[in-house]
């Protein structure tokens, strides 16, 4: 096996225990830089728990997370974001009372250089930074097609627009790895199609490594190069879409193979 430093994101035998419940156990993940990787599995399989461990919301019971070779296990979420991991949420978590533009601007805040004093006195460095932030934020909104609603409150957006705003906000943090938690949830087929195109575009334009959670198998099959399948907190398969599609354990987990799938 090649060196761990070649990979953008590495999870080594992660276990997450909530009291007596093992939400995830023995979870391994290797994602190459620039990959579009899928993490799939039925409801309650532990996909979001994995995301929460990677992004620092949860501290894993065992195991470690490495980002480009550096251990980031147990760091605070904001520190992990600063090191280049951005995420979206399964249930949309926008800053509802802020405008669409402000939501994206918040994403820029962590890369600020100007101190509080400079901001309060509106010194040149702060003003320049603010102008730059404004410019890149507007560009990001253009990329996701929200430039016309930039001054609306985030809560006034339609569901599909809110999903896209979450992606734009995550991109504003200038991430190297982007975690998308069920970005297509609740979207109609046309919107889903658009979104898949957006994800592919974004990866190429921003040189991102993307880890994508999807509940629907169909969505990931089209765009992910490799994927891991989780069921009951355990990895049951790993491979390319065609390998996964023909994997018997995966089919059983999805169609309900009962006791056979569960060792």
């Amino acid at each position, binding site marked *: 096996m090649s060196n761990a430093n070649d990979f953008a994101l590495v999870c080594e035998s992660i276990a997450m225990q909530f009291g007596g419940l093992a939400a995830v156990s023995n979870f391994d993940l290797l994602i190459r830089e620039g990959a579009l990787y899928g993490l799939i599995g039925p409801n309650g399989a532990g996909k979001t728990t994995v995301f929460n461990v990677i*992004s620092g*919301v949860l501290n894993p019971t065992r195991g470690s997370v490495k980002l480009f070779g550096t251990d980031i296990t147990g760091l*605070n*979420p*904001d520190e992990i*974001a*600063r090191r280049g991991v*951005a*995420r979206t*949420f399964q249930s949309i*978590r*926008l*800053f*509802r*009372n*802020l405008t669409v533009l*402000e939501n994206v*601007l*918040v*994403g*820029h*805040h*962590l*890369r*600020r250089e*100007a101190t*509080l004093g400079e*901001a*309060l*006195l*509106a010194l040149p460095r*702060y003003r320049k*930074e*603010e102008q730059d*932030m404004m410019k890149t934020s507007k560009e990001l909104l253009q990329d996701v097609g929200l430039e016309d609603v930039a001054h609306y409150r985030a809560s006034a957006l339609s569901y599909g627009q809110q999903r896209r705003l979450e992606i734009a*906000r*995550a991109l*504003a*943090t200038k991430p190297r790895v982007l975690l998308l938690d069920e970005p297509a949830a609740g979207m109609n087929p046309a919107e889903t199609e658009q979104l898949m195109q957006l994800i592919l575009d974004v990866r190429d334009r921003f040189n991102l490594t993307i880890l994508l959670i999807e509940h629907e198998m169909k969505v990931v099959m089209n765009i992910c190069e490799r994927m891991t399948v989780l069921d009951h907190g355990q990895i049951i398969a790993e491979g390319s879409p065609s390998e996964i599609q023909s994997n018997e354990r995966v089919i059983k987990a999805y169609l309900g193979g009962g006791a056979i799938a569960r060792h």
Partner: protein
Amino acid sequence: MSGNRSNDFVRKAGIALALLLVFYLCIYWVQTGWDAYKVRILNLSAIYIGITLGLNLCNGFAGQFSLGIAGFMAVGAYTTALLTMSPQTKAAVFFIDPLIWPLNSIQWGFLPALLMAGLVSGLVGFAVGAPAIRFRDDYLGITTLGFAEIIRVVFTNTRSITNGALGLKGLPPHTNLYWSWTFALICILLMTRLTNSSYGRALKAIRDDEVAAEAMGVNLFYHKCLAFVISAMMAGVGGGLLGNLITTIDPNMFRFPLTFTVLMMAVLGGLGSITGSVIAATLVTVAMEVLRALEEPRVILGVFLPGIPGMRMVVFSIALMVVILFYPKGFMGDRELSRDSFTNLAARFRRTFLHKQV
């Protein structure tokens, strides 16, 4: 292009200076021409504007429900009082337990004393805030409320520093309209700059969704402390101004109702609105005085009505309920009154009444 911009800057600075000049001329006129009672109400208005804005920063903009404002005001008031009183007055006031050295022999000017008050209450704010902001919502409220009570009890018992329950008398009456309204202006300016900056957006992000804010790289501890400390500093300086306005302070002034008054001002104006705080703080302060008339005995239509102490509080509660019913988010919600809102209003007026497209 750059010439235009610098012209624009000169123009804006000119307007600002002219407005300031007019403002201070008005203050000069009021300070010298009006009677002491009205001047005092205006002094109180300005002080409450500053303190309400501080509370609004913490509770409204950053969404940290803090109830410790009276405690920070007490710290500020005592700091300023002990630094500005003359050694002779101190010796006369501390007749049971003498004041400790070096406080008993120093007397500072008002400005350094106020700055010190801000500094000390900011430090206390950090000491309280740093552990307390791990809590959320009601729990944070209870913790900070407890802190304010602790401050009061401590001040009642450290007789050789605060003169205990007897309080301090004979504070130099330094506070006048220049001091109080300059304080209010600085607070308004500080809040406007802060809330419109990148830091302010981060605070609002924390209020709306802590988990998402942290995932976007906003350091929760730093930003919550920031809101807490600045809020405490504003309350501290405001407390100092208040002490030297009424010239007598004692620990019982800084009980929970004081926090409640300030909280009421912020809620009435709208949590998250600077203009709202300014309007509500002024309105409530003035109304508190005007409604005193209700508590005086009087004869109406030949019937003698005895004055009922506390009547104005009843009226206030009713007014508060009415406002909460009809304006659940306060007068202003989280909007601001700015030049833009006037232009928008004018445009809407033209659209509706003159049927013109603008």
